[in-house]
């Protein structure tokens, strides 16, 4: 009897296995992102739950986002696209989109609506969706300083203080690109955040920004890689450093670095997904995207890194840091107490004027 049962059990197990194998061959998705803490947060918030729900899928992380544009173009030109999904900045996405090497996105058809039924195109924060781009997070470039570098009663608190070497002496670590630096120069020079790009698209505005940067030029160390900024602060090499708010959060809250973030004039930008055209598993990628960009999943990512979810409906679901137990909401760039004077990065502006301004900036650095 028991042996018969066993037999039935075995045969049914075999047939179930055979069935599921026929329906779902194991597949692997190659997902390209920025590496480090950022990829780790995606792994825990998106990849692991998705793989749990779809046991036949294995997700392989590739830390290639920094050079994703060049690789995507090379793959498209070679006719051998191996990446399934890529995490990139919207300005890069716009370039890739213009080149036709990534897919156009129909946001409402491809992405989940908010729990209350608001369609995706209205749920994602205004201005964040791109022709080929699905935002995940809001991050910002913030000014950070070392409290120990200044007397207790004269701590810096604004972008204007970055440009005030008399009252706030010390070296400043800035990123070696015109973005953020030119915006801040104008902001510190009295331009309203709303008008910055209008001013910057005139030659006089550019001159004005560089003139302001000239005032601190001798005090600047330029950094290239994101990890350098917190390092320079931690080593006491500089008094101020610009950096991505997530890395700064990590350095301050997780590593215990003695530094404070100045949210004034934070330069806000999106980061998100693009789908390479002619990728190997397009259908599955769409399934993944639908899952990984819904309201709950975006809110989940904020448990692991201090970047704000790109959906309005996710904001209320942001909870505590999964390991530290810190309440994450106040560390979000979009938290009301931090979002008092944001400069929203204008990607169209940078795609249009970036080449020219980078040349001008490189020339300025060389002088």
């Amino acid at each position, binding site marked *: 009897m028991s042996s018969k049962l066993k037999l039935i059990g075995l045969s049914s197990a075999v047939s179930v296995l055979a069935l599921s194998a026929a329906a779902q061959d194991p597949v692997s998705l190659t997902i390209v992102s920025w590496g480090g803490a950022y990829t780790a947060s995606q792994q825990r918030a998106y990849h692991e739950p998705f793989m749990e729900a779809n046991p036949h899928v294995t997700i392989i992380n590739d830390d290639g986002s*920094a*050079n994703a*544009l*060049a690789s995507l*173009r090379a793959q498209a030109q070679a006719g051998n696209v191996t990446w399934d999904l890529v995490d990139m900045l919207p300005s890069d996405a716009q*370039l890739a*989109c*213009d*080149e*036709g*090497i990534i897919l*156009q996105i129909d946001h409402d058809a491809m992405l989940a609506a908010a729990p209350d039924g608001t369609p995706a195109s209205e749920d994602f924060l205004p201005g964040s969706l791109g022709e080929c781009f699905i935002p995940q997070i809001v991050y910002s470039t913030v000014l950070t300083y070392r409290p120990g570098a200044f007397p207790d009663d004269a701590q810096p608190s604004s972008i204007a203080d970055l440009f005030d070497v008399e009252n706030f002496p010390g*070296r400043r670590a800035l990123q*070696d690109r015109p973005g953020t630096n030119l915006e801040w120069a104008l902001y510190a020079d009295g331009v309203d955040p709303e008008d910055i790009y209008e001013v910057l*698209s005139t030659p006089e505005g550019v001159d004005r920004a*560089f003139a302001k940067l000239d005032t601190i030029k001798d005090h*600047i*160390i*330029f950094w*290239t*890689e994101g990890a*350098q900024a917190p390092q320079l602060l931690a*080593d*006491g*090499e500089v008094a101020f450093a610009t950096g991505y708010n997530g890395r700064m959060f990590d350095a301050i809250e997780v590593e215990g670095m003695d530094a404070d973030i100045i949210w004034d004039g934070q330069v806000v930008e999106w980061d998100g997904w693009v789908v390479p*055209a*002619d990728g190997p598993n397009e259908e599955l990628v769409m399934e993944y995207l639908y899952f990984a960009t819904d309201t709950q999943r975006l809110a989940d990512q904020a448990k692991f890194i201090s970047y704000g979810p790109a959906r309005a409906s996710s904001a209320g679901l942001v909870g505590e840091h999964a390991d530290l137990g810190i309440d994450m909401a106040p560390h979000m760039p979009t938290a009301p107490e931090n979002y008092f004077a944001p400069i929203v990065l204008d990607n*169209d502006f940078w*795609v*249009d*004027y*970036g*080449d*020219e301004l*980078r*040349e*001008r900036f*490189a*020339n*300025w*650095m*060389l002088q």
Partner: protein
Amino acid sequence: MAIQSATSEEGAIGTATDSRGRLVTSDGTPLRRALERANRRRKLTALALVAPLLAFILIFFAFPIAQMMWRSVDNPQIVNALPRTLVALEDWDGQGVPDEPVFAALHADMMEDLDRPRREQAIGPLGIRLNYELSAARSAISRTARSVPNFEEPYRDAFTDAHRLWGQPELWQIIKREGRPLTLSYYVAALDREYDADGNIVKRPENRQIYVSLFGRTLALSVAITFMTFILGFPIAYYLSTLPMRYANLLMIAVLLPFWTSLLVRTSAWIVLLQQQGVINNALVGMGFIGDDGRFSLIYNQTGTIIAMTHILLPFMVLPLYSVMRTIPPSYMRAAKSLGARPWTAFRRVYFPQTLPGIGAGGVLVFIISIGYYITPALVGGQSGRMISNEIARHIQQSLNWGLAAALGTMLLVGVLVLYWLYNRLVGADSLKLG
């Protein structure tokens, strides 16, 4: 006597002839053919031995370089996107804004392009290409393309209303000038020059010139680094060459150690040592040589680049020097001294000239490697210690302007070849001795 007869016998075999008086080998084949066959076999063997490497070099070295050089002049974007417009522009005199027929042709070109599948649309690349020449041209193209289906005649007004750039002669001059399958504009840009309204090549505004001075700096830094490795490498190579083999090998390992450490680890080590709050500055302050506010800036500037790269490239100088010095018999110096030369004269006139092949080889190696270096300068060079490769990498990876990157890369390649040619003319490449 017996030996003599043996040789004469061999001679008889070697000079055997066939019926027609031709030289033959022992099996009767004509000697000439046998030699040819042997020669051919030897050549085939040689080819077979070389073939894998040759194929490798062709596929992974020569072909990509040729492709890179091709990219620096390749200019398909405008020709692909605007065939009708270019024909219509042939009659335009280059002054003012073109007339209605040109705009009608532009409309027709864009309409046709919008019908193509996304991957084959030429409008996107067109915008990116034009933006290299004129800022905001990309958004002029992409914004217009979105509303083109709704345009009505007269198209000239429709286009100029859609974006201000369509009403600027500059954009049209660029379209006409660059509407050819090949272009020199990447080289023009790489030489800090641009076209003026009349199509003449003129210098760029001063505040946008970067590449020429960057080439100059790259050259100067590379020379400085080569010189530093020579100054530091010569004595150690000399000392190594005088030691018994087993000590020399041990010390050689110490010289080679940097080779075996990851580049990033080494560079990070330099950061720890050289920064203002770093080990060296702290030690100097601690010993009272400098005040706390007089700390040296040893990193994030040219000094940092020179120090870090000298360290990394030192083995490339020491190895050829050592292998050359090892072959110089010590007796030469003794002979010179015994003939009355003072040590310095003996060194200068007898020893040093014999090390020249090693200096040449080491110098060429270090110089050529350092001219193309980019990770170390990017990490420790700050704004003043950057090199041309950093700009090339940026154009490849970030701005995606591969044409300009290719032009810069080709110029760098040609520059290195010219320098090598000069070296060959002045010193002679056959005197290089790598081991």
